């Protein structure tokens, strides 16, 4: 299995690093303060492949706290609001697109 | 990298000799398959014990002619997820009756000790010190085994049979 660090890094626009928290599996985003947040608006934004790689490297180093960090696209809206950049990230941040059988 | 033998950390009597390096005159040696098959008699004629490091992608059949003259066979787990050496170990022990040292090398972690013991390994080049220290505890993790291997442990099926016989005998 190739480590994410061995793969060629290409980004097509503003991006962030996301992962899942080890102890409970929930979605987390890498912050600029070298930590993780469950809130997408705290995500550090990178705009070049080099920046993305650097962010990924430090994220992967936190093997205890986070599983499987990877680079994902975001959209930046007016006012700097960060939105998920594709359907998959939308689902990860908002939850399933269907009604759960038992209302939360 | 600690060696575990007889359930505990031990000094390794064997020295790995890299290809191309001269064979020491005495002492126990482990050499590669390529070197061994290229000229088996020279190392075998030495006074000291000889072991061969056998790759996991080659039939152990090719080693069988020399098994009764080898003190050790080292099998390889390039990744702990690559389970080919388990089959090789069982074949060596159960099909070919090999009774020398059978050593696990490569990525050897505590969570595979029980499987390795059951497959016939009796020596382990353990990756982590903490795993080597935990060998005895890890080896006793399981007391029930469903399937027979050459390790002599009684299977669940047979324990049940024994229970039944002793129950009916006691009546």
């Amino acid at each position: 299995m190739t480590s994410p660090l061995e793969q060629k890094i290409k980004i097509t626009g503003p991006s962030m690093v996301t992962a899942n928290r080890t102890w409970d599996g929930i979605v987390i985003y890498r912050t600029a303060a070298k930590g993780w947040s469950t809130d997408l608006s705290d995500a550090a934004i990178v705009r070049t492949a080099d920046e993305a790689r650097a962010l990924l490297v430090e994220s992967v180093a936190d093997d205890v706290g986070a599983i499987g960090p990877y680079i994902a696209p975001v959209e930046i809206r007016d006012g700097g609001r960060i939105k998920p950049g594709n359907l998959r990230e939308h689902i990860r941040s908002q939850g399933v697109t269907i009604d759960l059988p038992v209302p939360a | 990298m600690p060696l575990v033998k007889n359930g505990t950390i031990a000094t390794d009597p064997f020295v790995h000799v890299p290809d191309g390096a001269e064979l020491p005159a005495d002492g126990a040696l482990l050499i590669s398959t390529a070197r061994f098959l290229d000229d088996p008699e020279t190392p075998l004629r030495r006074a000291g014990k000889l072991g061969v490091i056998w790759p996991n992608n080659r039939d152990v059949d090719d080693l069988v002619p020399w098994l009764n003259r080898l003190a050790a066979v080292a099998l390889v787990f390039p990744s702990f997820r690559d389970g080919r050496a388990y089959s090789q170990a069982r074949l060596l022990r159960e099909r070919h009756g090999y009774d020398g040292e059978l050593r696990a090398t490569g990525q050897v972690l505590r969570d595979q000790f029980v499987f390795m013991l059951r497959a016939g390994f009796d020596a382990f080049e353990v990756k982590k010190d903490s795993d080597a220290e935990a060998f005895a505890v890890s080896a006793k993790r399981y007391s029930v085994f469903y399937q027979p291997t050459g390790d002599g442990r009684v299977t669940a099926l047979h324990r049940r049979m024994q229970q039944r016989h002793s129950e009916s005998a006691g009546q």
Partner: protein
Amino acid sequence: MYAYDELDRTLINERVEEFRDQVKRRLSGELTEDEFKMLRLQNGVYLQLHAYMFRVAIPYGTLSSKQLRRLAHVARRYDRGYGHFTTRQNIQFNWIKLAELPDALADLAEVGIHAMQTSGNNTRNVTSDQWAGVAPGEIEDPRIWSELLRQYTTLHPEFSFLPRKFKFAITASAHDRAAIKIHDIGLRLHKNAQGETGFEVLVGGGLGRTPFIGKTIKPYVAGRDLLSYVEAILRVYNQYGRRDNIYKARIKILVHELGIEKFAAEVENEWLAMRDGGLTLDDADIEDVRSRFSYPAYEKLPHMPEELKKAAHDPLFERWRKNSVFTHKVQGYSIVTLSLKPVGGPPGDATADQMDAIADLADKYSFGEIRVGHEQNLALPHVAKRDLPALWKALDKIGVATPNVNLVSDIIACPGLDYCSLANARSIPIAQELTRRFANHDTADLIGRLHINISGCINACGHHHVGHIGILGVEKNGEEFYQITIGGRADENAELGALIGPAVPYGDVADVVEDIVEAYLALRAHPDELFVDTVKRLGVEPFRERVYATR
């Protein structure tokens, strides 16, 4: 029902303790994720999009009411109040926390449930026919052999790190409800000319990126030789299966690359060297496992009880009875399928409340036993016919009496992009929309048996290749698109479906399926000709024309 004895329970408990220690070492950092991942997979723990997913084994799809209640407890205590039944007769929980998993496993262990080898590159749940033991015409109960295989494969020291996952299925009926032809090893139980029980052994079936229908490697293996023969197959696979490319690592690829004759010869060679060793089953061994299966003390009941005659005037009851109730091998009894495919609902899910209610109904009406089918429905296997009207009312109340079993809205779907990190597209909303389009039961009855299978990616967990209509989610330019195939089937005449044309966007899928169904209704030779037979007779072309005429 197989009764676990002290030895079985000890093994499960030892496994739980081992995993508890492994989780502790993971959370402390002593184990890296790279070292831990395979260990957690071997206990059924996946990482999905938003959380861990926990896959619990339901060996050969058989549960006691006590066990079902405990699954409900896990759903409530550790998850979000529901579970999902899978295409391999297991159950999945989607929101589990790793830190709480050892406790969840301990709770399950108390009732003899485990999650051993429900994932990872090892041997998985041995699945069987959900009507095993009660279907008319069955040679003998295949679950005895499933249990023998389950024990043999559990924590097998030689085969816990195979090149890739390995799946078994067993059938003992002429009509294969276990889909053995799409499994790595498929076993067809039958008797030889001397009346001895044995197996036709098939290998190399499987779906995914490179689907194959299994090939017969040996037409008859005696029961006593089953385990030794399986060991020979596994040993050949363990040593020679590809490990360089995960997409070429299943046994189906090895069988394909060697050819079935050469592969069979390799296995035979290996088998001859070990066939009379410790794995030979003698009659006492088989009897021991058989004796641990308990069967109901069926009453002598009439073929047509009064209660049933009286209820026949109720058209809703009759519709459900004709759809969901099947003939039992014992007179006066029935096999009842509980549809987990309500209109507008996600297929295959049950809430904790539903599970508890079904457990109570099983106690009252089915000798405490429930079955899980690979088509993601449940069944109550021992219902007295006189109890059918009362049972129906109760099932209807909890929402598991939709009379759509085997019909167009009885859809098999994987979790898809809503849950799964492997997916390219969503599958559940597609299934939901289809159940809404075909909500009218008269229409569904008119259409007849029609299996729709939906997979959110090429891994094919929804078994789309063998759907009468198969739907495969793909990604095109960041959008969800779907390829549609028709004419697949998973039974004894297993066949892969054929593509009807270019992929269609998310919003069009339900319309396309409606067009396909309309074409079938117009083209079928007579109302009894099933969809899949019309496709066989006419080929894909007439359907393709209809669907793509306006697209």
